[in-house]
Every structure is written in structure tokens, then in C-alpha cells.
């Protein structure tokens, strides 16, 4: 499987990455080299093998529903690029 210009731009949009015109050709070549290398996993017939998502055999745990110390509003906003009152401020935009 290979990735073309159109797919590259689609994936970049999904990832909210702007890909400049000057980068497209180089990225397309590099991504296709990488995809060709990783596609090796499809050589194996693993229809009977279960997937591993986590290396340890652990089960889900739920924390007790008890209040614990957490960040103050000032701490949470301390690194904000822009704030207004107790809110993170962002530029306007409808669809994103």
C-alpha cells in the first residue's frame, strides 16, 4: 500500500497538521518508505492470534469516589497562551 498526495493531505487534516507545499514531496517519499517497511507485519497469517494492547495481564480498576486535592484555577491557567478571566481564550471559529 502506498500513500499519495491526496491521502497525505487528508491524513494531515485529520491530525490538524498544516503541511506546507515545500514539504509534501519529501514527506510523501519518507512516509512511503516507512509504510513499505512496516507493512512487513502483513506477511504473517495471524487470524487465530489475539491482539495485545497491554503487556501486563491487569484488569480495569476504579478509584474510590472521594475528593482529593487538585489544581487550583490559577494553577490550571498558569501556562495558558491566552486567558480571559477564569477561561482559556481561543480565536473564534465554527467548524474546528
Amino acid at each position, binding site marked *: *500500500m502506498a*500513500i499519495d498526495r491526496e*491521502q*497525505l493531505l487528508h*491524513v*494531515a487534516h*485529520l*491530525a*490538524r*497538521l*498544516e*503541511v*506546507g507545499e515545500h514539504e509534501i514531496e519529501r*514527506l510523501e517519499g*519518507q*512516509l512511503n*518508505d*516507512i*509504510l513499505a*517497511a*512496516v*507493512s*512487513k*507485519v*502483513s506477511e*504473517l497469517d*495471524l487470524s487465530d*492470534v*489475539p*491482539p*495485545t*494492547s*497491554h*503487556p*501486563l495481564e*491487569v484488569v*480495569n*480498576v476504579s*478509584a474510590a469516589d472521594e475528593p482529593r486535592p487538585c*489544581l487550583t484555577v490559577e*494553577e*490550571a491557567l*498558569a*501556562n*495558558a*497562551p*491566552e486567558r480571559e478571566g477564569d477561561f*482559556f481564550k*481561543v*480565536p*473564534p*471559529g465554527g*467548524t*474546528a
Partner: protein
Amino acid sequence: MIDTLRLTAEEANAMLTQGDASSDEIYRAYLDAIGVRDPELHCYLHVCENDGGEGIPIAVKDVIGTKGIPTTAGSKILEGYTPVYDSTVVERLRARGLRILGKTNTDEFAMGSSTENSAFGPSHNPWDPSRVPGGSGGGSAAAVSAGLAPWALGSDTGGSIKQPSALCGNVGLRPTYGTVSRYGIVAFASSLDQVGPVARTVRDCAFLYSVIAGRDECDSTTVELPRPVEVPQDEDVRGLRVGVPKELNEAEGIEPGVTEAVRAAIAKLEELGAEVGECSLPLSVEYGMPCYYLIAPAEASSNLARYDGVRYGYRADAAERLEMYQRTRDEGFGDEPKRRILVGTYALSAGYYDAYYGQAQKVRTVIKREHDALFETFDALVSPTSPTVAFPLGARTADPLAMYLSDLLTIPSCMAGLPGLSIPCGLSEGLPVGLQLVGPQFAENTLFRLGHALERAIGFDTVPERLR
């Protein structure tokens, strides 16, 4: 006068407890050494002028969150970010009185094998500054080798502790997945990331592991250690069964000098009384790298979605929100994170998920099973850590795939969640060669025993020749 080049953490601590030097004097000695040698080596992205505590100093990789101390993960997108809380591992260091010297350089978001992907410039190998220190944790490994820290914390996803330790000639442990908290760590690939120690000796490495390991309520993937950490005392390895996987020792691209040093060390293990036998990991080595380079980018594409210019970090100027996200991420991320975000997003996207990510997760099961089967016969596996010694700066930057091969021998055990210890075992062309010991889950104590015995038998001088 404190000679930081030779000082182990254990020795520094003894100076302190015997009253030969104060905590401040030891801390100051390291700051002085940093002032002299770091302009050439660039191990640190941030040096602390002081840090609270009564104990000995430590360096911390810059992907590990430190309250009040800048944490950038080597990325422009986090330039100027100062965490408002400590990661659990740093809390545990502080609880023992350890004092942070500074934050060490890393490939951006720990993605790389040379530190050349750091947005703030590469680190240099203390054995030969024209060569890389390995990566991603090259800053931590180089700092320990050059006497700019007695020990350090690193993080490892596919080899980022073990490979730099090998290239810089010191000891690094990637712990069993789940034994060290990831709370407060800049996430790369969550099912693989582990924090671990870098040190001059196996004993220091084991002690530092005992400080940071164990269940943390803030990271639900952590578990309590089934048995306490044992800092190795003697050189007795009689009866331990050590396997030599053919594929990990004979893979294409392993330099002859690396093979020679590792073979000599394996012969020493036999002399020490270990039972050494041949074995095989036919699929793990062949399919480990493709499996890793699907799973790690897939998880990274999800983890790095949080860098959107809204809550912290860099924000590009833009009039409209979508444009702000896209430009922030375009200007904030370097080439390697961008490549991995794109590969990962593609591998997870509709129509490709089963063929790529789903299949890679099944390969992961195969790798785990292959290792499990060997541990019915062996207590540990031995191989080179890195196929090559430290390579020249710039040698692999133009070709991402050539860089990826740097981790060929460390990746398989990472995929299976297994602990791995790298120790220096000799020189090739005047540069350190690392030996990798891999054990079953939670077998760190076995690795420490073997590593300590070998370290004593080999007598490797961890001080770079040019600094002696």
C-alpha cells in the same frame, strides 16, 4: 575537591553520611563540572541553580515533569512550559532528599536514537564529541559519563535508556512495564513508555530503581513489585541459565567489534558459573521493528493531539481557530514527530486499522509468546544492546529508516513489556560497547545479579579516555 568524573552515587552518599562533604558542596561540585564541560557536550536543556533537599544530586530527562522547573521534552511546542505539579517519580526522588541538577536533553518527545531530533540542538558523546550519545535519552547518559551527574532518570519506549547507556558506556535499566509510574511524564506511546535509571554502576542503578518503583494511585497501569528490589552484594551467578538468542546476536548490521566484546563477556559469564545456551527468537527480531513503528506512532498520534495551543505551550498567531491549531502544530513540531503523527494517524484511519494497527497488536502477542517460551528454559537472555558503537553526528539524519535500525535489538523485549539492563562490556575502536540482559517480567533482581557480576569481572572504566 570532589572529582565528579569518578564518583558513584553510592560514594557521594557515603561522603555525605560520613561528613566528608555537605549536600551543598557535592551539588556545587556538579554545577562546576557542568559549567566546565556542558558547553561542549550540551547534556542539559536547563540547569537548576539550586534545588531543595539534603541528599545527593540527580539529573532528570526533560520528558519528566518537574514542578517549577521548565519541561520541554526537547520540543519547541513546549518551550517555556513550567509544570505546576511534580511527576510521581520526581516526588519519590524528593522524598529521599535527592536534588535535581537540571533537565537533560532528549530527541523531541523522545522520538529518536541520537538526540539530533531535539529542537534545541544535539548532545555530544563524551567519548568523542563528534559522535552522538544515542537517544532519545542521550543527555542523561552523556551527563553521567562526563561526571555531570552521579546518576539520572531516563525514559524508554523502544530503547531510549538502554541504547544511550550503551553508546556512552554506562548502566541503564528499562524496567518491567507497569513497575514505574508514568504520572506527570510527557506521553509518547503509553503502552510502551517506562521511566528508568541511568548510573555508573549496577548497584546504583538497582538502588535508584528501588526509589522510583511501585504502585502509584495516579497511574492505574502500575502494579506493586512482587518482591523487593535487591541491590546486588556479591558476584555469585552460579546456576543462572543465560540464553544467547541467535537472531539478536547475529543480526545484519552488528559491527564485528561489538560482537567480539559481547562474546568475550558471555565467556566470562560462563567462567563465573552461569549456564549459557543457544536459543532463538525467529519472529521477534524480524518483525519487532515494523511492529514497533506501527504501534508507537499510532499511540503517539493520539497522545500528541493535546498540543493544540489552547491550554499550555506554543501558540501560533491566527485569526481563526482551525488555522490556529494547524499552524501551532506545524510550527511547534519538528520533522520526526510530524512523520510519526502522520504514520500513526494513517495506521489508525478507517480502512487501514485492521491491516496496520490491528495486525501489529497481533504481532505483539507473537513476540510476547516467543519470549515467554524461552523463559521456561532461561533466566535471562544476552545480546549486544546496540548493533553499532556511537555513530558520527549527521550520519543517519537524512534517512529515518536508518535511524530506526539503531533500536533493532532493544525493541523486541520492549514490545513484550520485559525488563532490560545495558552494561558496558568493552571498547570497539575506542568507543563503548553495551551488553543487553533481558529477563522475564519482574526479574530485575536477576538482571542486577548478572550485571553486577559481569561488571566486576570486566572491570570497565566508565570514565571516557579523553577525560581521564
